[in-house]
């Protein structure tokens, strides 16, 4: 049960008891949140279905490069968080701290790219009120950005706290819960990005 057993050399099919990483309640939150997003994706798809030409025309005004790069940024950030949790399990607190900091740097990079992207749209005179496509574009990416901001705070706290982290299961579970949330932010973008930018 104690997490430090699996750290040194994990045997892939070891008869270790199955364990949900982190905090069960956070998983409940994550599934509720993901369901809320799924509802919004469905709503977008339905409105797109009723007016495909207008949506497609507006989609061409998006820059998929921004979206693609942001996907790469979030995936890399998630990787850092996974490695940070592994470092914590191996009692390498300093290493964990730097990995969390790197993940946070990715989070900032994501926000910066989003700021550029929004700026580009505003310059072109496009806003949430331009049409239905851009209403969804700004609101969905905006709500996601809100999640990123919360996630950055979580990452910052984990980075600061991890220097004094202990390898106790209860302490580790809190870090894993933070990691679960950050991976969800990544996960939502993985679906949000193709729906808004790539569907044609």
């Amino acid at each position, binding site marked *: 049960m104690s997490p430090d057993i699996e750290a040194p050399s994990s045997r892939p099919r070891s008869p270790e008891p*199955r364990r*949900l990483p982190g905090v069960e309640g956070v998983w409940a939150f994550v599934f509720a949140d993901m369901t809320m997003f799924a509802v919004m994706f469905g709503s977008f798809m339905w409105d797109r279905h009723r007016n495909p030409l207008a949506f497609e025309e507006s989609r061409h005004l998006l820059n998929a490069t921004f979206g693609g790069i942001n996907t790469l940024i979030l995936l890399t950030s998630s990787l850092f968080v996974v490695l940070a949790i592994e470092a914590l399990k191996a009692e390498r607190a300093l290493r964990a701290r730097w990995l969390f900091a790197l993940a946070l740097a990715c989070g900032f990079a994501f926000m910066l790219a989003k700021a550029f992207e929004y700026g580009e749209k505003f310059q072109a005179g496009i806003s949430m009120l331009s049409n239905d496509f851009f209403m969804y574009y700004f609101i969905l990416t905006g709500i996601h950005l809100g999640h990123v901001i919360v996630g950055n705070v979580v990452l910052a706290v984990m980075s600061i706290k991890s220097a004094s982290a202990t390898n106790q299961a209860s302490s580790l579970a809190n870090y894993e819960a933070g990691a679960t949330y950050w991976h969800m932010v990544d996960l939502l973008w993985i679906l949000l990005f193709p729906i808004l930018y790539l569907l044609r």
Partner: protein
Amino acid sequence: MIPVNTTTLQVLAVWLVLMLSTVLSTWGFSRPLFSPGTATLAVMGIAAIKLILVMEYFMGLHQAPRAWRVAGALWVSAAAGMVVLIYLL
């Protein structure tokens, strides 16, 4: 110096697959070479695989009790399936 274990290697491999598939979706299937229908289905298929990979190996569901894994897979199939279904309508 850095202790590399199989878990780390596995995660790095997953990350590499995720990165490459993102590049393929973003800058590959967007080319006019592919018809809109083909490109969309390919992109959504790749997205579904990416979602499963993130859930299983980043979020750690591969070591979680079965019920949680099923819940994760259900969400992925419901969300991605709904998008594809409405697209095909």
